[in-house]
């Protein structure tokens, strides 16, 4: 059983902030099958198409029958802890700083034996559930935790290294005017975030839900117009050093594609808000987040983007908007690489049409803003990188994997 983590004390200004170190990063190309699984919160192993045996670690040929026909498939997570050990003086800087560090050998029910990081409540001989997690270097590692819930389970020191749990952290939700932004604020507070800063552009414009945000313990309304460089840098000057999680809830949806619009002013607004807003936020808040990746219990941990799934496949009815989202998706990969040395995760949530005014005439299914907020929480707590929220997003993902050309034709209607 583990003790709950304590709310972090204020920092001692006489002490240098420790810089983040990264655990070993090298992986084979094939091993990135596990990276994909970890990014999406799935547990996948290679299985031989010829004999059905599961293999681990990543192989080029089946260890049982030498077939090269190995495919990553979702695999049963259950196993038993065979043996455990504690590394007390590791040579690697990252682990040395975090020693003692427990690892163990897990015999999976589906066959292979895996070396895994251990949750503190894992007991030798007892059943465990295995997952792939993204570590601070952004690579997949195997992590075993007890089969059932244990007290304060999410507070485990080694588990918290793999996740971006909002508990005791300070979060900036960039746009509090949107329904998703407001739901995210409520969910983050419920998840134990210490402070949620809520950005409001043009505070002279009233908006629905404003009263709910005002005057609540732990919620601070701040002036933030992501599309305005000065507004973003001014806010970062105030709070940049205490934003542990940034949730980019920029939302600028306008219908229309190319031929039925006149001029570029709407497209420009879309780019200003979504793309340039992203750049402004990244330049203002990113460097401090990257630097604070090992800054104690409330270290910086994650950056969340909410993207339309049409970033992946253009929806002509909202064609220019889709393109702005595609630009943001590309930027998110750049940001992920640049934040990686700090161990800060970039979580992209892909949604279909959200149940808001701009998709009013779009028939269901639409994603409830609350569902997006809940997905953000589970993504942060699970340490994920990619999530597809709602039926439309999930369907487009699957269909893109099967035949992108069919998706393109069928979105044109």
């Amino acid at each position, binding site marked *: 059983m583990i003790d709950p983590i304590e709310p972090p004390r204020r920092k001692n200004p006489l002490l240098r902030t420790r810089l983040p170190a990264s655990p070993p990063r090298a992986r084979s190309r094939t091993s990135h099958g596990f990276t994909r699984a970890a990014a999406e919160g799935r547990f996948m192993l290679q299985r031989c198409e010829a004999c059905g045996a599961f293999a681990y670690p990543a192989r080029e040929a089946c260890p049982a029958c030498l077939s090269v026909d190995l495919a990553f498939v979702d695999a049963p997570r259950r196993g038993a802890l065979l043996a455990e050990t504690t590394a007390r003086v590791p040579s690697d800087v990252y682990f040395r700083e975090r020693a003692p560090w427990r690892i163990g050998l897990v015999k999976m029910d589906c066959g292979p034996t895996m070396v895994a990081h251990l949750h503190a409540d894992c007991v030798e001989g007892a059943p465990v559930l295995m997952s792939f997690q993204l570590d601070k270097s952004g690579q997949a590692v195997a992590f075993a935790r007890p089969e059932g819930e244990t007290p304060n389970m999410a507070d485990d020191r080694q588990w918290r290294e793999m996740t971006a749990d909002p508990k005791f952290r300070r979060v900036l939700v960039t746009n509090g005017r949107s329904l998703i932004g407001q739901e995210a604020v409520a969910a983050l507070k419920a998840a134990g975030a210490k402070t949620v800063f809520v950005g409001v552009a*043009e*505070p*002279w*414009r*009233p908006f629905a839900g404003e009263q709910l945000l005002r005057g609540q313990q732990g919620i601070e309304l701040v*002036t933030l*117009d992501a*599309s*305005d*460089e*000065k*507004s973003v840098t001014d806010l970062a000057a105030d709070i940049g050093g205490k934003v542990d999680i940034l949730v980019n809830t920029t939302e600028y949806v306008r219908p229309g594609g190319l031929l039925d619009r006149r001029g570029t*002013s*709407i497209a*420009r*607004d879309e780019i*200003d808000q979504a793309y340039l807003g992203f750049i402004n936020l990244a330049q203002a808040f990113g460097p401090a987040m990257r630097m604070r990746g090992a800054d104690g219990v409330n270290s910086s941990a994650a950056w969340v983007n909410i993207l339309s799934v049409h970033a992946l496949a253009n929806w002509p009815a909202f064609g220019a908007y889709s393109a702005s989202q595609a630009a943001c998706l590309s930027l998110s990969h750049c940001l992920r690489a640049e934040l990686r040395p700090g161990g800060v995760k970039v979580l992209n949530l892909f949604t279909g049409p959200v149940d808001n005014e701009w998709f009013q005439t779009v028939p269901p299914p639409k994603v409830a803003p609350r569902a997006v907020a809940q997905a953000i929480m589970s993504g942060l707590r699970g340490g994920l990188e990619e999530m597809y929220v709602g039926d439309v997003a999930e369907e487009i993902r699957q269909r893109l994997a099967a035949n992108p050309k069919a998706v393109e034709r069928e979105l044109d209607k």
Partner: protein
Amino acid sequence: MQSKNLLELAGAVSSGAVRVVDLTFTLSPDFPVIVLPPEFGQAAPVRIQEISRYDGRGPAWYWNNVTFGEHTGTHFDAPIHWFTGKDLPNNSVDTMPAKDMIAPACVIDCSAGAAQDPDFLLTVPLVEAWEAKHGRIPERHWVLLRTDWSKKGWRDYANLRDDGAHTPGPNAAVMKWLVEQRGIIGFGTETIGTDAGQAGHFEPPYPAHHFLHGAGRYGLQCLCNLDELPATGAVIVASPLKIQNGSGSPLRVIALVSAN
């Protein structure tokens, strides 16, 4: 006029015998702009982006790229801005006569009324009462509506409610009357537009825009410091940027006021 009079004016400005009052808000990203329903095209907000600031991007110099809509900040409306003025000659900021950029002003103080009622309206009887005190409004003068609205915080300044903005302005009759009976050169306000916040419901809608621009006259809005102007005798200098076929522009508006 003899050139020595002009020199005298310059000397008076320099000595302070003629006071120069700045009627302009600082052009900044956070100043409220006109709000239209989101399905309409929107004025680009004011954006100021550094090109360099004595740094690696330009070691010895500081400069910015600036973007904004024609109708942001303290700004000027040309006749071409409204459909009623679209076919007039020289109706845009680049073709309007330069001499129209300097004209005297009558300042009508309605600050007490506006403090009582955000939907306060200037009417013909109110202007007639002003004229009884200060004399008839001469032709080719600006009429500036002082409401002290420019002293408010920005939320109260925009004063948006769920049925639109509630800010003071002129009613339809007084605009028609000022243009047709008094021949004013233009109308200026402290609020976001020359029209009242609820003017979309007037007959005709937006009467200040409708009548001013239909007759080739001008608008000034988002003015400040009107409380420093006398009721009569101030001279307004308002020269908009020379934007090709421009419907208006942010500008520096100054008033020359005799110090005694």
